[in-house]
């Protein structure tokens, strides 16, 4: 079991951005992604594009069409970018106005679930979404149009 908390990165009328923080780690999930690729000789240009997309989405909203559909049919896991790139940032898009940024990596297999590392990032988000939905049902999590409210420590 790993303990994880939801952290707010930025709130706004058009989109509120969150990430996940494992209690055992010093960096949150989105910072881990940034640390790997921001200074990467091979992927820094792809990273800059993703950073610009996130910045734009934070200002204007997280429309479904801005994302690549990943995960399973019944979950909210998506990825950036849609355009051709080997880099993938995995996210939970709960609505046009709520986005949770996860970790990501270089996709070198046909599908994410053929790569144990990428599959792990997607599964983290899938499991977190399930716990979030349970929290909404039991009242420990509140969900409004633009915000998630919780002080829960989730056990993944």
């Amino acid at each position: 079991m790993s303990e994880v908390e939801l952290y707010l990165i930025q709130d706004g009328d058009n989109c509120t951005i969150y990430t996940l923080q494992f209690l055992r780690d010093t960096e949150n999930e989105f910072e881990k992604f940034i640390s790997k690729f921001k200074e990467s000789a091979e992927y820094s240009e792809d990273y800059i594009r993703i950073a610009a997309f996130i910045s734009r989405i934070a200002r204007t909203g997280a429309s479904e069409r801005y994302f690549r559909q990943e995960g399973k049919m019944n979950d909210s896991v998506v990825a950036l970018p849609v355009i051709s790139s080997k880099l993938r940032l995995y996210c939970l898009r709960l609505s046009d106005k709520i986005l949770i940024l996860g970790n990501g990596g270089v996709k070198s297999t046909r599908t994410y679930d053929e790569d144990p590392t990428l599959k792990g990032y997607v599964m983290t988000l899938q499991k977190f979404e399930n716990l979030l939905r349970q929290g909404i049902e039991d009242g420990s999590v509140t969900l409004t149009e633009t915000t998630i409210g919780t002080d829960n420590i989730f056990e993944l």
Partner: protein
Amino acid sequence: MKRTTRSLEEMLGPIPETVKAEVDLSFEISDRIDLLMRERGLTKKQFADALGRRPSEITKWLSGQHNFTISTLAMLSSFFGQPIVTVG
């Protein structure tokens, strides 16, 4: 609710102005196409069929991440009978 110690902008780091401008324009074009499609009541499949394109190509156009050519923009303006981008 806990907040990250760094803001989104601090986490992302500097983004070159040229990339920001390109991404903003690309998203605005995709939003414009999406609006025109909805006004016409076109699904992605219907739109793709009408243009003789693959639905996957329309997905890229609507993603806000596609680098449109002048030729594609001219074709889309002609199809909708309205400008997609306005110069000047």
